């Protein structure tokens, strides 16, 4: 064991988790065996501090060696600094799983406290991190916990109806449905993540849950991040589904002429100061009616230009008109819903589209813009709907065994250069400072290594949960060809099947994240 490490670990824990006095949470349980080991074993698993905690002598019930100083876990913990090694080992050589429990302050933490004061015995493998509410638990904390050496994670809060902030646990439940589906698609071993409701009166349930998770994780063995994932068994055909149709079979030339005329009219009337549209080689920003010939409309008009509405340099040009396809327009709906765009300040020119030959086009049902200020060609026919199942790519991925899925994503993410083209091109990634750019503390490793890449892509995806409109720009621009659309699709699938919501389709619909329903599923919650 290393005393120094223990000290720093516990101080981190004190500031982060176990600040309360008399936190007999897990200490109580071990005190029968090792009175001196009381205190709390809440180890700061780096959720906020970046330090992986070593517990301070929290007894040794499982390893059998009782005693005041029996800190079997901390020696092993010290070796796990970078989170690459898996599995603490007890004095007798057996694997001792490290369980990180993110619990809410009002119910589960008090349930743990009750277990302690009632002298209920449970394994000392759990490290408790107390947060105000399950609704406040960022999924990145879970990723961090695994990065820094957790073998399993428990998230636990108040029963439905018991939340001390009225509805935090309902929000958590919904967010966890999305996050769990994301992890499933990535191929994560879902047995290592547990969600429970434990009230302040359920000391016994806490005891039982911790005992069960410890035993189950012990049987699973150490968590080895992305191990055995070096060789993908073979890339699935998911995502490679091409439209099969030649792009833009509509009379593009006529539409292009109409577009230029519209732009000239708007600019010369002073209705708008700039027209954001497609040029021969990329987006163009036309500010004069004399320049409208720079605007084009053809089978390469793929970009989602709504992303430029967030850029300060473009905003500085004055009131814009923007050229959108039916799919791009969905981003505008979300931006409006999130108060990023005031539709009064944007003139929307919708282009009826026949598909751009991208995978998304096969299942497109927004070929016709629906909310545009004007549509070209004017009064285009009724909306055509492509028949393909839009979630087919996710389904085919889910048919692979989890370890093959993980191997697939490992190979994909290993190519990531962290150029952030995916983020920059996304119309809905508009944070002034991205979580990935925050370094006090470093929320996500900036390094483009496996750990940093997984953390980044999981974070990117979950931040778009229930928001992504499926324009697939992230996938189009990735220089490494990473199939990011599959992650977005997975979350869109959950949003649609569980909450009946498709981002950007209905201006009045309530987004799934930030709302909840008492009927939300919770079969994954114990």
């Amino acid at each position, binding site marked *: 064991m290393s005393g*120094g490490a223990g000290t720093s670990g516990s101080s981190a824990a004190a500031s982060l988790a176990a600040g309360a006095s008399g936190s007999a949470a897990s200490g109580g349980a071990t005190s029968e065996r090792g009175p001196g080991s009381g205190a709390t074993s809440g180890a700061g698993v780096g959720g906020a501090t970046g330090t992986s905690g070593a517990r301070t002598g929290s007894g040794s019930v499982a390893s059998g060696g009782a005693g005041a100083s029996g800190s079997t876990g901390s020696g092993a913990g010290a070796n796990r600094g*970078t989170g690459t090694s898996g599995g603490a080992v007890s004095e007798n050589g057996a694997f001792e799983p490290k369980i990180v429990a993110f619990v809410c302050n009002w119910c589960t933490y008090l349930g743990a406290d009750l277990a302690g004061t009632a002298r209920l015995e449970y394994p000392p493998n759990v490290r408790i991190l107390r947060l105000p509410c399950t609704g406040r638990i960022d999924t990145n904390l879970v990723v961090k916990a695994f990065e820094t050496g957790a073998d399993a994670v428990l998230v636990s809060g108040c029963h439905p109806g018991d939340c001390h902030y009225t509805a935090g646990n309902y929000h958590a439940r919904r967010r966890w449905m999305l996050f769990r589906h994301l992890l499933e698609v990535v191929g994560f071993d879902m047995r290592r993540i547990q969600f429970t409701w434990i009230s302040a009166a359920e000391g016994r349930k806490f005891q039982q849950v911790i005992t069960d998770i410890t035993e189950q994780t012990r049987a699973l063995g150490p968590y080895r991040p992305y191990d055995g994932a070096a060789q993908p068994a073979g890339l699935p055909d998911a995502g490679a589904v091409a439209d099969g149709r030649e792009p833009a079979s509509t009379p593009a030339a006529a539409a292009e002429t109409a577009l230029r005329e519209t732009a000239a009219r708007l600019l010369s009337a002073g209705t708008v100061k700039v027209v954001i549209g497609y040029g021969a080689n990329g987006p163009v920003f036309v500010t004069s009616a004399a320049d409208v010939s720079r605007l084009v409309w053809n089978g390469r008009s793929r970009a989602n230009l709504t992303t430029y509405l967030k850029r300060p*340099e473009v905003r500085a040009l004055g009131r814009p008109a923007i050229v959108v396809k039916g799919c791009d327009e969905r981003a505008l709906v979300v931006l409006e819903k999130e108060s990023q765009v005031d539709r009064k300040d944007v003139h929307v020119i919708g282009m009826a589209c026949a598909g751009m030959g991208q995978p998304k086009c096969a299942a497109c049902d927004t070929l016709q813009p629906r909310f545009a200020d004007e549509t070209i060609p004017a009064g285009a026919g009724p909306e055509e709907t492509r028949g393909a199942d839009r979630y087919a790519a996710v389904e085919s991925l889910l048919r692979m065994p989890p370890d093959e899925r993980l191997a697939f994503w490992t190979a994909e993410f290993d190519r990531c*250069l962290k150029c952030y*083209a995916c983020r920059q091109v996304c119309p809905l990634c508009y944070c002034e400072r991205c979580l990935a750019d925050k370094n006090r503390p*470093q929320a996500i490793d900036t390094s*483009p290594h496996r750990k940093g890449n997984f953390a980044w892509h999981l974070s990117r995806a979950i931040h778009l949960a229930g928001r992504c409109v499926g324009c697939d720009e992230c996938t189009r621009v990735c220089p490494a060809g990473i199939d990011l659309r599959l992650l977005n699709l997975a979350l869109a699938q959950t949003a649609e099947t569980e909450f009946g919501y498709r981002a950007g389709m209905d201006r009045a619909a309530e987004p799934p994240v930030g709302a909840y329903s008492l009927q939300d599923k919770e079969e994954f919650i114990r």
Partner: protein
Amino acid sequence: MTREQLRQLVAEWLAAGKAVIGPVRVKPGTVLYTRLASADALLLGGWVRPANSIKEAVFPRHEVLYSYRVEGNGIELVDPAEEAREQIVIGAHPCDAAAWPILDKLFDWDYRDEQYHRRRAATTVVTMACTEHDEHCFCTSVGLGPEAERGSDAMLVEGGGEFQVRTLTEKGGALFAGCASAGGTACATTATTVAALFDPQRVAGFAREHFDDPFWRQHALACLGCGACAYTCPVCHCFDIVDEGNARGGVRARNWDACQFPMFTLHASGHNPRHAQGDRQRQRIYHKFYLYPEKFGEILCTGCGNCARNCPAGLGVLPLVSEIRDAEPVQA
């Protein structure tokens, strides 16, 4: 030698335990320079332009500089292992290979980067003279060409379904020792012809005299501020130093960084000297055509066109420099 003989040779290198890097179709639609798992994975013939460059072989995107361990009151620093594994890059374009002599100057300037030079010494580059090019290529504008030999240890010239081997250095010679045509130079060249599109001197001149020109911001409006151009550029070499770990141990690492990110020049005070995206685009052109030549005597660009090929918004060196070329007579 024929394609099959070349593939056989690559298989022998792999069997001898050497790391071989070459163009690989990692998935439909994506070709990258990657470590070859087998000789069959190597893409040969036709227009093969990987999205990335070969710089990663000597300047990895993530590199541990040293690690540290805290034991009690002591701190132990551990250097990374010194030996660099012998590696061979095959199927590189001349514009990829030419990047390395340019980078050598930077990594041996005020500080000699031993890790870089160890890898450089352990790496042999076999280029393939270009028989085709696309609309993004402009190597001849920066003094190179489809069969430029700079930086290559050996060059393969395809003609009549066979490769002719030009060995250019001892390292290159050692690889192809025993091959029938080794050392030969006369060959009916099948190399493509790329027209020179601009004069880099004039770009430097424009840059020098138009620092505050509104040109930069106007022409960077479409720039989204990602690092796709820099990260796929054979010569972009900016990096960031990060510490990863905790109170007991960890690493200090070097990661690629890019001048197009706002974070690249953001001061701790919150001030950013390159406030707008146009300022960052200007920096990229400045560095390549004005600042680097001033310091090291050569252009920091090999005309590969990767920036434009990978740009989500159709920008890149050639599009921007073409604007300068077209705009300059008016401005001057």
